[in-house]
């Protein structure tokens, strides 16, 4: 809301600066966003008196003037046809820069010296009028600053008005607030238009179908009007608050909207057919062309203003093109109505039609102020357009506004705010805000009866409907900043003791693990594009995805079903910056559609890991290499160890399930599936500009958390007797995996075998075979083992295994 300080002062004698007012309003909940000085460039322009004016001896279209600007007289050559002796004019002296950037210099025009410029409205940035110089009122003081002489609204406060304070979307509303906050009187002069001619009701009758949609519909008829250019001050004032001046008829409706917050609409009465205005819902399938020239398809829930044939306007939002005010308009029906906020909002939103009128109706317009606004508007219109107001207000008020009667208990306010309040402050504040306040008799039922009041809020405060709203008003005026801080003692109920670790805390611990291990946390958007997801998600057409119905861009039109796209995008961003590699992790939600969920979504917390490029951050003394499967697999096993879980079982995955990974493996803990791991196929990696292998894993953190919560750590006594170790190397045929060998060894009946681990893996070139060396640890629980016993056990392994799987020694 753009508020002119001068305009405000017409209603309230506020003496402070714009900054003072902005500060007061801000601390009362009406935040100052900024102060604009739209006419700042005009400050050095002064009022001059054209003492002499004669034709230029060398040029017919130029005049040579002698202009008195108070402290001196200037010779000025002027090209405007309308300049004349005896005028008061706007003078820019040498050195002044006008709003259009023109710099005034001393000049000689065809031999005549010129020491300044007599300005037009366009040159002053006041309008686009180039027709001639701006001629000021004869009362303007010679030498006065032009902004003062024109009473320009030169200080404009931009106030952010919250949705509950529709009443402050006007000069009057902010003046009321200023008066209440600064304890100043509000000056609202009575206005009654002069009425002539036959009663208005002889020309037009009104009918309203629905009291809820339109509690009040009223208007006046103004005749014999001629649309003109509005007076300068009105035009400049509208311009200062961002409204374009159009004509004396239309400008009045905008002026009253800005001043009183009451939207008005002026119909050309000669284009309203049948002498009747009907307010009701649109007919099914009805189409209306609105003022902006757009064809609007209407629904029966839209409020239309109609004549006896069709719609002539969309109530509270925008008029129809056919009944628009034009230069030919002579008779005006000036509508001043109240429409239902949410109905207006539904229609305006559906049609994407956000007019100033709709904006105010959505937030509530003061029904009790509508009559005043209509009278003031009618009087202004008649006076500015040379017309006359027909006697009588046409009015249908099916539902008069009724103030709610609220009870305010002082004790309740004190309990909520944590301060003690003075009776006089409570009653006085609400009274100053326009409420009718009556003390209620003390309630004898309570041991210590508190003060209470019955409060009836004014019509312009439809937001005050409950005791809580009144307490807020008290707090706001009292000053929230004056309430002393108290640190609360928070009571924790015993019933919540011993709850399992929360998902949040588990996530934080996983993040700490990842950081400690040396991974870099990323945060990626939860949405990606369907197109991007198609690469990862083999079930493109399956109902597994959750689309965004109103995405900002097609790049963000679906929720991610896995973390891989975001991690890969992060990799791409870094490769573009020349990063040699990445070790990323992210903990975030993967979303899949779930018909059984009330939110339609199944949300799974995931840990995503990505390794690509340089294994180490630094080179020497490390031996640099590209990250590979062992890096990622090792990190994954480390995660499980870190949460006291057994090693993961990594099995080849069904390639169809991960068409973008090769190799692809699934991660299981025991029989519980935990996620997947693999290398991104080069074609997919390439689309993220990755030339080096990209290894990626995702784990379901909810599952991991569940497994972790089930862990019961129990102490195992340390072995007493020393172990004996024996190494054994198998030459393995292609296809024989490490897991297969381990499985075969551990299946043998070897009661003394305590541990088997791989200690070397060698792949001679060309054979396809691998040499895997294992270290077997033997131990007897009750005595020291003899070398011969260990040898015998090792030999048992050596002789048994080639018979079970394709290995030799």
């Amino acid at each position, binding site marked *: 809301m753009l508020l002119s300080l001068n305009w405000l002062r017409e209603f309230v004698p506020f003496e402070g600066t714009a900054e003072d007012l902005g500060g007061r309003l801000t601390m009362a909940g009406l935040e100052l966003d900024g102060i604009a000085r739209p006419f700042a460039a005009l400050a050095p322009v002064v009022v001059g008196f054209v003492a002499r004016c004669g034709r230029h001896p060398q040029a017919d279209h130029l005049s040579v003037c002698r202009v008195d600007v108070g402290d001196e007289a200037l010779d000025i050559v002027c090209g405007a046809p309308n300049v004349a002796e005896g005028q008061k004019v706007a003078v820019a002296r040498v050195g002044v820069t006008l709003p259009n950037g023109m710099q005034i210099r001393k000049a000689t025009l065809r031999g005549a010296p010129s020491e300044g410029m007599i300005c037009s409205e366009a040159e002053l940035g006041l309008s686009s009028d180039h027709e001639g110089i701006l001629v000021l009122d004869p009362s303007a003081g010679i030498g006065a600053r032009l902004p003062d002489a024109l009473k320009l609204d030169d200080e404009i406060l931009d106030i952010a008005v919250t949705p509950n304070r529709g009443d402050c979307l006007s000069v009057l509303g902010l003046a009321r607030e200023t008066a209440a906050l600064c304890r100043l009187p509000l000056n609202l002069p009575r206005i009654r238009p002069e009425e002539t001619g036959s009663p208005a009701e002889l020309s037009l009758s009104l009918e309203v179908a629905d009291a809820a949609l339109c509690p009040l519909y009223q208007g006046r008829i103004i005749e014999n009007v001629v649309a003109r250019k509005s007076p300068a001050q009105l035009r400049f004032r509208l311009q200062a608050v961002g409204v374009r001046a159009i004509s004396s008829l239309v400008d009045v409706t905008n002026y009253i909207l800005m001043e009183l917050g009451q939207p008005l609409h002026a119909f050309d009465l000669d284009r309203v057919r049948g002498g009747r205005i009907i307010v009701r819902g649109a007919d099914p399938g009805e189409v209306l062309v609105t003022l902006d020239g757009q064809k609007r398809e209407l629904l029966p829930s839209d409020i239309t203003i109609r004549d006896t044939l069709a719609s002539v306007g969309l109530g509270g939002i925008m008029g129809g093109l056919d009944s628009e005010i034009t230069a030919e308009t002579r008779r005006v029906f000036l509508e001043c109505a109240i429409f239902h906020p949410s109905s207006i909002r539904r229609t305006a939103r559906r049609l994407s039609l956000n007019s100033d009128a709709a904006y105010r109706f959505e937030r509530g317009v003061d029904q009790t102020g509508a009559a005043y606004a209509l009278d003031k508007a009618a009087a202004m219109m008649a006076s500015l357009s040379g017309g006359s107001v027909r006697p009588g207000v046409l009015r249908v008020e099916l539902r008069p506004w009724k103030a709610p009667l609220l009870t305010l208990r002082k004790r309740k306010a004190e309990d909520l705010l944590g301060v003690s309040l003075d009776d006089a402050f409570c009653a006085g504040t609400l009274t100053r805000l326009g409420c009718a306040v009556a003390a209620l008799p003390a309630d004898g039922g309570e041991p210590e009866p508190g003060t209470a009041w019955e409060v009836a809020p004014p019509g312009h405060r439809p937001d005050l409907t409950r005791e809580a709203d009144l307490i807020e008003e008290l707090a706001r005026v009292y000053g929230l*900043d004056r309430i002393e801080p108290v640190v609360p003692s928070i009571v924790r109920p015993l019933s919540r003791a011993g709850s399992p670790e929360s998902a949040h805390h588990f996530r934080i611990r996983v993040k700490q693990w990842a950081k400690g291990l040396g991974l870099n946390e990323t945060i990626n958007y939860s949405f990606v594009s369907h197109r991007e997801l198609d690469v990862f998600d083999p079930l493109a057409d399956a109902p597994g995805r959750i689309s965004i119905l109103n995405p900002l861009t097609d790049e963000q039109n679906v929720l991610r079903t896995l973390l891989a796209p975001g991690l890969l995008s992060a990799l791409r961003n870094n490769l573009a910056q020349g990063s040699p590699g990445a070790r990323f992790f992210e903990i975030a939600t993967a979303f899949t559609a779930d018909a059984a969920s009330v939110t339609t979504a199944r949300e799974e917390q995931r840990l995503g890991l990505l390794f690509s490029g340089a294994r180490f951050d630094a080179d020497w003394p490390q031996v640099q290499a590209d990250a590979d499967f062992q890096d990622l697999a090792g990190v994954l096993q480390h995660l499980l160890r870190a949460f006291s879980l057994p090693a993961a079982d990594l099995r080849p995955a069904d390639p169809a399930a991960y068409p973008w990974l090769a190799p692809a493996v699934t991660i299981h803990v025991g029989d519980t599936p935990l996620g997947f791991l693999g290398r991104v196929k080069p074609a997919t990696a390439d689309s993220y500009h990755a030339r080096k292998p990209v290894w990626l894993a995702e784990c379901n953190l909810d599952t991991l958390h569940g497994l972790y919560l089930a862990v019961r750590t129990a102490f195992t006594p340390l072995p007493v007797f020393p172990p004996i170790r024996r190494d054994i190397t198998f030459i393995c045929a292609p296809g024989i995996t490490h897991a297969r060998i381990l499985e075969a060894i551990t299946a043998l009946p070897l009661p003394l075998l305590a541990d088997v681990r791989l200690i070397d893996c060698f792949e001679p070139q060309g054979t396809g075979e691998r040499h895997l060396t294992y270290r077997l640890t033997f131990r007897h629980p009750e005595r020291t083992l003899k070398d011969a016993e260990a040898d015998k056990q090792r030999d048992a392994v050596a002789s048994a295994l080639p018979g079970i799987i394709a290995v030799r020694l």
Partner: protein
Amino acid sequence: MDLTSSLESLIPALEASLRQTASLDELDEIQVAFLGRKGSLARLMGCLPELPAAERPAFGRIANTVKERLTALVEERRRHLVEEREQSYLARFDPSLPGRAPWQGTLHPITLVMEEICDVFQAMGFEVASGPEVETDFYNFEALNFPPDHPARDMQDTLFVAEGVVLRTHTSPIQIRAMLERARPPVAVIAPGKVYRRDSDLTHTPMFHQIEGLLVDTRVTFAELRGTLTMFARQVFGSDVAVRFRPSFFPFTEPSVEVDISCILCAGEGQNADGSACRVCKGTGWLEILGAGMVDPNVFSAVGYDPESCSGFAFGLGVERVAMLKYGITDLRMFFENDLRFLTQFA
């Protein structure tokens, strides 16, 4: 040469060899050559049976003396070489060489700030709560006193996934979930999480992070809201920070406030030392960091709490905003670009 002189000649022979020895490995070889099982000494000792029995004891004594002498010579040389090696290591030692560096991990600045804030509130007794990111209209709006077709809904441009289902526009639905889950006061929760709005420009990203706080008990006051948030501001931004409460509007709190802290760059002066307007607070001296208020009675009614017998406060803050202030980050979008040169500045 008789056996005895052969034996005795081992000593000068070893001395000559040791003089040539520069490394411990060579020393080991020489030790084996002279004193090993098949070394020179052993070979001569092997001739013992060939001697007349009467000469054997004398030869044995000489052999022992020679063996002791040889051993002493080797050990002396060894001590010398070890000492030499040690001196040489110390002479070459360069403490400025890089270490064998383990990977350096980092947490995202959003995580760091979120955890710092959660820690402050947990120390005061708040419990961490979470909720889904896809929410129903009931939790995201209706129960929070945003009636349908109310302009308050314009305050949050919403992304929809289905009729009546949205990406949560704030963490406030977790208030509703926490109150319903606990069924009665007291409720003291802090809820960090991702939120979504249909908004993208220099100062808005469609996804960002919030932290919600809620305290409900039989008699919670606005003064306690002030105390809680002043505590938070000082813990996170320093003990000299001033806190300002301005009335505002949120549908789910009444009274509602916006909370400003004194500008951390210009210390609330509004201007720099040279008199120019402060870039961070735009000359106002204040920075808006969160919204808060006393829980609206309609919210209590929506979750079945009696507004007459309980009261509470709620607050919500933008994590990116706090992180930007705390670290002096000027571009919001950097949070989601995951540039390692950015990420590795925070640990």
